[in-house]
């Protein structure tokens, strides 16, 4: 009698106990979530089979057959595989994300600080910029810039020539001379690396001296001198082993040199100033969060205004700025998938676009593209977390 009632007694006991009830609820939730995932996965496989499509990633190694107009890093032809076209797209995504984050940060800090300026005009200009930019969708910004670049700039035949026929600006892109490294250029590179090492060592040494004696060296100017003088000397000593490939108009287009394409310019500028509007507000919030008393105390101690900003305000503001800044970097990277609207060949346009179309593998390509964005975002997050923990206020 007692034994037949035992299991239900145990269950009701477990349910009444607060701790074990929590565990039970968690287990049930997990079972439901994974059950749903399993149903979804099963449905995908069954439905793909129903239309006669095999779930397989073999297509990655088939020849892609199409050309990509913008592959600055690796050699790609229409005989390369879909895998390679994905790599080209990934590199283009990373390129735009990298330069976008840098420009957005610079612009965002400038605009954010402008917004706090005591000059009425400067702060109003910044205010209007922020309110205009962040209230219009980013796709519209990108399309607008692209239209401006392509319609306002002249065609290649009437290209604007700058710096005595070295640089050209046209609606096919901005053409600049490309360096050609000859033998001996490697030594210059080595000297450059050595000078960077020297600068780092000098900074450490200067900091130690300052900590011990209070003497302050002009670290910035000395570093700049080291970085410019030593490599220049090496360049002269090796007999300037770098020559320039100068762009010139041949036939339809400019040949030679390096080109920054209008698609890249439009996407880069559009993403950057859009994200900069958000960063500006984050920067403003961060700086405002440092109480005025800090500045007043520093001034009372005789610390100069720029040193106050550098040593007292910024370090405290940064710990507020950095975590939301990370979200903005993630946004910018994911927004770069709008590239396809103007024909910039990012991962969504190559693997998630043309390859998808040519092979009919929508599920597989979309999974890969999703996975890649996920990995890029996680990498950015972990870098920002590392940076955040480095700059966070040391509490004693």
């Amino acid at each position, binding site marked *: 009698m007692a034994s037949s009632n035992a299991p239900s007694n145990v269950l009701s006991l477990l349910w009444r106990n607060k701790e074990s009830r929590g565990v039970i609820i968690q287990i049930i939730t997990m079972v439901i979530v994974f059950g749903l995932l399993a149903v979804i996965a099963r449905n995908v496989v069954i439905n793909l089979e129903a239309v006669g499509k095999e779930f397989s990633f073999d297509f990655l190694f088939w020849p892609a057959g199409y050309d990509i*107009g913008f592959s600055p890093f690796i050699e790609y032809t229409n005989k390369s595989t879909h895998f390679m076209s994905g790599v080209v797209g990934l590199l283009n995504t990373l390129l735009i994300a990298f330069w976008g984050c840098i420009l957005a940060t610079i612009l965002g800090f400038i605009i954010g600080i402008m917004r706090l300026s005591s000059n009425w005009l400067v702060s109003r200009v910044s205010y209007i910029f922020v309110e205009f930019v962040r209230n219009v969708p980013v796709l519209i910004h990108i399309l607008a810039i692209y239209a401006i670049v392509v319609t306002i700039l002249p065609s290649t035949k009437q290209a604007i020539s700058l710096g005595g026929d070295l640089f050209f600006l046209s609606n096919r892109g901005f053409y600049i001379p490309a360096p050609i490294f000859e033998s001996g250029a490697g030594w210059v590179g080595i000297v450059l690396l050595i000078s960077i090492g020297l600068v780092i060592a000098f900074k450490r040494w200067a900091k130690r001296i300052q900590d011990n004696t209070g003497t302050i060296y002009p670290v910035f100017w000395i570093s700049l001198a080291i970085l410019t003088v030593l490599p220049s000397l090496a360049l002269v000593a090796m007999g300037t082993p770098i020559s320039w490939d100068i762009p010139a108009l041949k036939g339809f287009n400019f040949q030679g040199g390096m080109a920054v394409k209008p698609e890249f310019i439009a996407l880069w500028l559009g993403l950057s100033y859009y994200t900069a509007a958000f960063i500006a507000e984050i920067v403003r919030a961060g700086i405002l969060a440092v109480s005025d008393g800090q500045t007043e105390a520093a001034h009372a101690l005789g610390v100069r205004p720029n040193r106050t900003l550098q040593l007292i305000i910024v370090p405290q503001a940064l710990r507020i700025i950095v975590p939301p800044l990370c979200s903005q970097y993630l946004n910018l990277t994911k927004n770069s998938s709008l590239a396809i609207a103007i024909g910039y060949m990012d991962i969504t346009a190559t693997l998630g676009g043309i390859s998808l179309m040519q092979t009919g593998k929508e599920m597989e390509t979309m999974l890969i593209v999703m996975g890649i964005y996920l990995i890029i975002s996680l990498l950015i997050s972990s870098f920002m977390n590392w940076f955040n923990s480095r700059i966070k206020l040391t509490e004693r």
Partner: protein
Amino acid sequence: MKQKTTAVLSAAALVLGFAGTTQAGTLEDVQSQGVLRCVVSTGIAGFAQPDASGVWKGFDIDFCRATAAAVLGDANKIEAVTSTGKTRFTKLNAGEGDVLWRNTTITFSRDVGVKLRFHGVNYYDGQGFMVKKSLGVNSASELDGASVCIQTGTTTELNLADYFSSNGMKYEPVTIETNDEARQNYESGRCDVYTTDASGLASTRSALPNPGDHMVLPEIISKEPLGPATRHGDDQWSDIVTWVLNATITAEELGVTMANVDQMKSSNNPEVLRLLGVDGSQGQELGLSNDWAYQIIKQVGNYGEIFERNIGVDTPLGIARGLNALWTEGGLIYSPPFR
């Protein structure tokens, strides 16, 4: 981006299990919906484009209307499901449309790899190039180093790559999502050349501010047989789409037009009588009413009428019949007999 959303939605349909439900019985589905959903392009003048009052018009639309006339008895019961080159097959396979009438090239990989059923050719096309006359180019072989605007998600990307590499020429592809955006890029001078099927070039040229300033180069670099497509796995529906196309062609061959279709019901020609459902039971065998082909001709017209009305020499597109003339007149348009 609308296209991306729909691609994701289609993928979601696969995930959530809607796709499998639309496999068989498309005819019943269409008849119970009371409307035929045709996957068409986002807008190509003459082929599929909404007019000023928002009504879809064009060559592909008329074939969609013909299908609706046969299946539902009313050519106006259509719904245009727009799609880009990239999303069209996903939309069809996910069941967002019942049939694809969207100047789509029939190829091996689409038939076998994308799992479509093709039902014959309603337009024989080929890829060409359009340039500004001011460039002074007279042949595609002079295009070495040019910037070329292409619409993504089409066979043209592959043809273009093959043509330039087999002729040892270089080019800069500028790959754009839709026909309209590609045209804007060509107009602004971002590209020297615009390439797509010759019919699409004629359509694009007619929409440019000064069509006379642009020319289509003589080279046709590919075979582009355009035709309707349906999903795998519904043979009855496939038969219907096949014979809708054949009915318009046969009607032209037999001289049955929108104007004379009523008189033709008392014709002496037994094939005309079978086509119009006076004799025999071909309509019932297809699962339709016996006057299905009569409705097509009465409401939409025969192949020649559809062609001339939308893209023929008297339209802004001004396309001659050429390869698309009937086989009896030196073209390739040919229908199996109604027997």
